[in-house]
């Protein structure tokens, strides 16, 4: 239930904020060093970092629960215990993957 609604929420966040960021990033690279510096400044701002870490988590949560849905599309994993364990694994997995990426980065900034 929670994981299912999170799939929608994270999907909507990625579709809006995530894709806007992707477009901004590519345009900044195309515009040259000054535009890219403005992008990095915004990204490294505390608010920017919260958004980036949040989107990273949203990406992995959406990816993992999407994989869960693909497995369930085959008709597998509908037993209550299995289903719940799989849902919990997506929550743990997205948290671990987000930390794996951001702990070294944020550690380097501090």
């Amino acid at each position, binding site marked *: 239930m929670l994981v299912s609604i999170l799939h929608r929420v994270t999907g*909507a966040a990625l579709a809006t904020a995530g894709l806007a960021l992707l477009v901004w990033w*590519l345009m900044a690279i195309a515009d040259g*060093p000054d535009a890219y510096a403005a992008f990095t400044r915004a990204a490294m701002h505390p608010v920017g970092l919260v958004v980036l870490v949040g989107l990273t988590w949203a990406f992995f949560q959406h990816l993992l629960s999407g994989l869960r849905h693909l497995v369930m599309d085959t008709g597998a994993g509908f037993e209550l215990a299995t289903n719940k364990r799989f849902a919990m694994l997506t929550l743990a997995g997205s948290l671990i993957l987000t930390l794996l990426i951001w702990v070294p980065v944020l550690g380097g900034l501090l």
Partner: protein
Amino acid sequence: MSVGESATPLGTVEGLGSAREGGEHWLAERVTSAALLLLGAWLIASLLFLPSLDQRTMAEWLSTPGGAVPMALLVVTAFVHALDGMKVVVDDYVHDAGNRFALNTLLLFVAVGAASLALFALGRIAFGGAA
């Protein structure tokens, strides 16, 4: 709206029944999700293994076929998948047919516009218009 042969008399009168479409949409969402799994892994691995994340490194990387082509595929696939997903959300929560059509059309315009901006940026990087 077409009504399936199996529709009950009441269903026929009310114009209800299978919409007779949607299967392709459902499948497309899953095909793009599989593609995004690969392209997302490629993007994360690339960013982790690139020597630096500065503008020059990014521009040089995206000027090579190995950088530009997967990135262009990622942009297109991500926007198609996002549009498919947002359409499901809109169709679920917006009950007025007119509003639903308007919102889906707006999302389509925004997605095509934003994806075009991204592809144009990639073109500038790859074909030398960029600084």
